[in-house]
């Protein structure tokens, strides 16, 4: 029972998250706002989407008017548009380098987009260069993919050095040296992403000697894989190509020396921020389990995604360490702060044939310049689209970088302005909450953390306010405890002295209506459950009214539990306000069990009649009322530190209910333990069969109806 309930709860949560993902795409006058051709969103802790004001606004198009001297017509110039450009680099002076892959050249533009020069390396022509990096000292490194080499040019474009495939025993023979992207660190060491190179980045020293493979990804390993490994032969398993770790598609280096990698075709850690030791800085501690976990990057929504998943292609890091990633599949641009927390995302499928300002059709690379402008290279429309930070986006960036530095006090007025302009933007609430916590305003911090849905912060501030409360109320609490103790002792002394006649008169329960007396049978079930159930069968200790009341109370308690429990334990209660679906499922499963259990038991020499099963099953639910309600209340006074207690009690509740059902089978049908176990098992199997049957009947009849209707329509219309 507990399992099924748990499972259904999990399914319910998953479902509701899926559904709420589509939030905020509303039918309300849905015009894109002025100045922007896309909508910007924020996704909160629970996967709810909120439309927000634009964080970036399109500011222009670069690289679409390149002209070169006409080779046939000296003195004249001709247009020479980019051709499937694959990479972009912005140097310290904001000058732009484009790896113009299809034209086998590098295009060098100034910060306004005017052509400075074109690099073709005539001594040793480039062939489909896909990556470009310009070192602080002016050296230009080109990933000359078609020639399987890295080319290093000096500031003036003169060939300095060629890095061919390094020779090392550590590089497997199967390794293909097709460099696509690269960065060079301060020392002059190269980090090269190669096509399909699942070993990680190839790290070379200044002389081109192999150092190591850097920042490799782990192979995903799932349950199916475990099964396959068990069943497959070694050869078969080795053939499973998908078991290779994802190969790095792009690499970037931050001003702080961190190396950022982007990996396609993985569903976690698509972006990594690697320190010198190759450790990912973006993995975070899970609030519930405390383990370091890799997060998923690349935002999407069902409405924008149309069912496909993100395919991140490139990342760029700005001066504050904010990471911007572009998605070739969904055309969504997502921006994260330096810890990998989402700031905002925007974009979506470009509609209708013509290219639009601000909408990139095939983003191949992204860069930022010193002004905070984003540049996105569009390899299909052969140009760069630029975006500048909006006024709102600028405040968010500033406030967030202060928060990241721990300067909560300074960030507070900024976050307050952000919250004024957008009340649903959780990072602002989080920033304000942190500032309040730092100032010791725990109650306010608690409210803000709760609103932002951040369990750990809420829990910490609540712990503080609870502590304060206990400290302040200590005297009162102790006095209350003493008084209670005194009363108890008094009662014990007095009770013996009450005459029997008065006792009789005090015993109101004898005069109570039958169904209330029947409700009292619960106490018997607590003390001696099997006997209690037997009494239901043979002594008529339960009735229809009491059973119905118990059932309703239990289902009500379940509703209160699922919506009233502290959100740090049940985050899903924040996402779905309505409890109706949960209650319907609860009732459905319970009734299904009653029916199936009765059917099975009547075949297996069970002695219980249908009503006994019904009563017994209703009575078995009383722990929801007895334990569930208090637990829900207490949970609101608990913090994450006491989550062990909460989970113990919650699980205890389900175990108790499960046991009651078991005893119910024993007591009502007069079964032995073994018989009861078999019976319960068969009941569950029957339930599953019934569910499948119902589903089949439903879908067949509706299919039949649709078929008849379609035939009718086809005949009458065509």
């Amino acid at each position, binding site marked *: 029972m507990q399992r099924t309930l748990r499972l259904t709860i999990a399914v319910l949560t998953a479902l509701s998250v899926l559904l709420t993902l589509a939030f905020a795409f509303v039918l*309300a006058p849905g015009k894109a706002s002025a100045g922007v051709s896309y909508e910007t969103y924020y996704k909160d802790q629970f996967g709810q989407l909120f439309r927000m004001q634009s964080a970036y606004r399109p500011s222009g198009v670069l690289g679409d008017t390149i002209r070169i001297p006409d080779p046939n017509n000296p003195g004249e110039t001709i247009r020479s548009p980019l051709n499937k450009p694959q990479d972009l680099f912005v140097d310290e002076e904001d000058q732009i380098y484009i790896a113009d892959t299809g034209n086998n050249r590098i295009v060098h533009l100034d910060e306004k987009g005017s052509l400075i020069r074109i690099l073709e390396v005539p001594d040793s022509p480039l062939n489909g260069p896909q990556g470009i990096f310009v070192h602080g000292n002016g050296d230009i490194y080109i990933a000359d993919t078609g020639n399987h080499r890295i080319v290093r040019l000096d500031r003036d474009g003169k060939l300095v050095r060629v890095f061919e495939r390094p020779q090392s025993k550590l590089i497997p023979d199967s390794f293909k040296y097709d460099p696509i992207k690269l960065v060079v660190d301060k020392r002059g060491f190269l980090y090269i992403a190669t096509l399909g190179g699942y070993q990680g980045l190839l790290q070379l020293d200044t002389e081109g000697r192999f150092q190591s493979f850097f920042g490799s990804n782990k192979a995903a390993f799932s349950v199916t894989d475990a099964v396959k490994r068990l069943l497959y032969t070694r050869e078969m398993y080795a053939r499973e190509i998908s078991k290779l770790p994802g190969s790095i598609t792009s690499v970037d280096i931050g001003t702080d020396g961190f190396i950022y990698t982007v990996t396609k075709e993985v569903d976690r850690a698509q972006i990594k921020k690697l320190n010198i030791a190759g450790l990912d800085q973006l993995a975070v501690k899970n609030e519930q389990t405390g383990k370091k976990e890799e997060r998923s990057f690349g935002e999407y929504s069902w409405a924008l995604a149309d069912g496909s998943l993100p395919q991140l292609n490139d990342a760029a890091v700005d001066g504050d360490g904010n990471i911007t990633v572009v998605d070739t599949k969904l055309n969504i641009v997502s921006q994260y702060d330096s810890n990998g927390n989402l700031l905002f995302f925007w974009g979506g499928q470009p509609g209708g044939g013509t290219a639009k300002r601000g909408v990139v059709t095939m983003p191949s690379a992204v860069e930022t310049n010193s002004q905070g402008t984003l540049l996105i290279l569009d390899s299909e429309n052969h140009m760069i689209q630029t975006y500048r930070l909006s006024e709102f986006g600028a405040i968010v960036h500033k406030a967030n970088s202060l928060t990241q530095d721990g300067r909560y006090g300074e960030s507070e007025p900024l976050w307050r302005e952000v919250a*004024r302009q957008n*009340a649903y933007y959780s990072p602002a609430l989080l920033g304000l909450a942190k500032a309040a916590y730092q100032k010791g305003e725990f109650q306010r911090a608690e409210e803000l953390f709760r*609103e932002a849905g951040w369990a750990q912060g809420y829990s910490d501030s609540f712990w503080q306010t609870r502590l304060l409360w206990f400290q302040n109320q200590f005297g009162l609490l102790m006095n209350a405890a003493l008084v209670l103790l005194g009363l108890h002792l008094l009662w014990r002394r007095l009770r013996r002295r009450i005459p029997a006649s008065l006792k009789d008169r005090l015993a109101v329960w004898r005069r109570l209506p039958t169904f209330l007396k029947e409700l009292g049978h619960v106490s018997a079930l607590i003390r001696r459950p099997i006997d209690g159930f037997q009494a239901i069968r043979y002594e008529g200790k339960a009735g229809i009214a009491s059973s119905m009341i118990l059932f309703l109370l239990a289902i009500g308690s379940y509703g209160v539990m699922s919506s009233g429990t502290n959100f740090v334990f049940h985050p899903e209660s924040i996402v779905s306000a309505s409890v109706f679906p949960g209650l319907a499922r609860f009732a459905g499963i319970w009734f299904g069990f009653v029916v199936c259990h009765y059917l099975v038991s009547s075949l297996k020499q069970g002695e219980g009649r249908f009503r006994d099963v019904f009563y017994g099953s209703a009575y078995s639910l009383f722990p929801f009322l007895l334990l569930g309600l208090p637990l829900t209340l207490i949970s609101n006074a608990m913090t994450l530190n006491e989550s062990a207690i909460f989970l113990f009690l919650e699980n205890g509740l389900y175990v108790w209910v499960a046991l009651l059902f078991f005893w119910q089978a024993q007591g009502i049908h007069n079964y032995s333990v073994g018989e009861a176990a078999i019976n319960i098992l068969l009941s569950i199997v029957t339930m599953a069969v019934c569910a499948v049957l119902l589903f089949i009947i439903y879908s067949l009849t509706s299919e039949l109806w649709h078929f008849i209707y379609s035939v009718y329509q086809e005949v009458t219309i*065509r």
Partner: protein
Amino acid sequence: MKTLKRWPLRAVLSTLGLALLGLFLLWISGASGTRAEIGAKPLNNEKSKTVNTSSLSLSAPAGEPMKPALPDEGRFKLAGENERLRLYVDPATAHFKVESRTSSRIWRSYPNPEHWESETIAGTWRNNLLSPIMAEYIDASSSKSQSKLTNWMEEGSVQEGFELFDGGFRITFQFARTGFAVPIEVRLHKDYVETKVLDEGIAEGALSLLNLKLYPMFGAEPSVGQEGYLFIPDGPGALVTFKEEPGTQDKPLYREPLYGPDAAFYNEPTARNEVKMPVFGIKSGEQAFLAVITGGDAYAKLFAAPAGSLGVSNWAAAEWQYRIKFFQSTNGQGTEGFYTFSEQRFKTPERSIRYYPLEAEAGDYVGMAAKYRTYLTESFGLARIEPKKAEIPMYIDVIGADLREGFLWDDYIVGTTTDQASAMLARFHSLGIANMTVHYGGWQRWGYSSFGGLFPVDSRIGGNSGMKEFIEQAHKLQAAVYLEANYSLNNSGRGGFWSRNDGLRNMAGTLQTVHNRVSREDIPLVSPLYGEQEGNADMEEYRALGADGILFAGGIGSGLSTDYNSRYRAGRDEVAASQQSLIGKSRSELGGASVVDGSFYALKGGASHLHRLTDDYSYDLFIDEAVPFAQIALHGLVTYSSDWVNVDAGSREDFLRGIEYGAYPSFVFTAAESGDFKNAYTIWYYSMHAADWEEEAARLYRRYNEALGAVQGQYIIGHRSLAPGVKETIYEGGHTVIVNYNAEPYQGEGFAVPAEDFIVKRGEEGA
């Protein structure tokens, strides 16, 4: 093997086809006499003289099939003349040209012969450009057939039935191969030439006509170094400047239905603004024209092709729609089915375009807008505004309430009670906002997401009595109160609405709905004529509350959808008429009518304010810039506001654009805290708390007043760029507003504009 098998069938079919074609041609030649008469019938007051075509000694004499070619310049005959313009026509090709008598400038209905040699396009499109009329059609007998393009010249049609009359000419274009017959008429008026397609006389053979373009090349010019642009009604109006070289984009086209998509038909997703104005134009050097689609506009698509997309010319035309595909569902849910075309053509009395030739100073978008303004005053009866106050109005949209998912049933979220609204207005008034117009939304029972059966006002925000009191309070502050109403949706079933009977249906009979993703609900669209009835019935209630008008949201005055519900069947033009009647009723009975996202046909009904008028274009890269065409045409006639400052239109740039375009500021407010509406079904706006914005609103209001207070009733007579990012708007009387969007100050002659700011130069009268 395969070919052998199929041969006989094909042979039989083609023989049959040929035979049919022959018969058909025979029939046409027999019938053509009567056809010419159809065109001639309605005009008995003119002395019509049928021109004997054979006597004109054409290159293609009567009976001989036509070859696609430019008209012979020597063959043009004078068809009409007045003090400004002369109309010439070539009877052989039915092409015409308009000559300005003062400047002798010429506007042609065919490609400029001077540049025709450089035309590189080949095939059907070459002939399309030469032909006075082109058509798209489909063979409806086969479900697999594709639509095809054709034109009158290419089919080797025979010129016949041409007829001159006083001031113009008419002809029925007989398509020899496809069998279409399209009667048209061209007429010279005081300052424009009008072309008309006479739907009554259209005939079809076996094929189904999808759309027509009549004189698509009117005023078209290639880019040859002259200054020029295509003007298209995208957003407030947008320019596609003439470029000698194509951009990076591959043959971009602009093709958009007037007044937005139609729920009953298939709509191409283009991610563009809806077209709100039935106008387009071309400027080339010193001469230009403005085209106004005056009849059948509801059935037009705007089509524009910059140079290089379809031929070397920049051209723009109206594409008259006769059939649009719709989804014929074959199952109950309407999820399965196929797209098909209806048998019936769209019919509308006439489809007419006025071409206003413009030249010299008037030959730009300002001149076009001024001409359109004249059209609006003369044909729609718009009159100059008498400003109520010296201060401009500020538009405050107040949200009463909305719903969200709750524990057991929906939660009712109170945004602003009527008492709170009174307090809000008093507060704004005390902050110096002297002229306010309130649009109260979400006042109906169960708030904003509950559509249909609006009255009475929900008691939880004050009820009818509270609303009445609020309006009285507002009137004391000389503020106007409009109640927002959506008569296009109904999910409450109130007011006797039953979606089976009263919902909007497409031709397949499928009820059309709008999906609300938050409440996961499909909300039925109401039959437009039912909606009109409901609105009319409510009129008394509005009056009883003292409302100054209705703010029409949800499509009335904004968009058109055909309804095939047999009880309320209405075409797009009938829907437009019904919306106009409802808007007119609000105007006449209550005093005003505001429209959200208004289309210009709403002005004909009597709309007095276009709320949140789009001020930016759709960002297509081939379009170069947005220009305030709509605003120039409207300022001084009808008020218009820019988008809500507190929902992503509050940047400096947005503020400056509002000033440049002469738009009034608008806000959406609640008395409730901004966070209260989280996860509400419809109201998703993230910052509505009035108290959080009051200071900013007051500050903005002062700045707006500085720029626009004095010219509320004045027309805009000039608009231009002084430098990149520096725009000048001139009003009657010389009041000039100069806006500088750049991060650096702008130094003009004798004035300076601070960075990201504006200055006002008073006119002679004001100084």
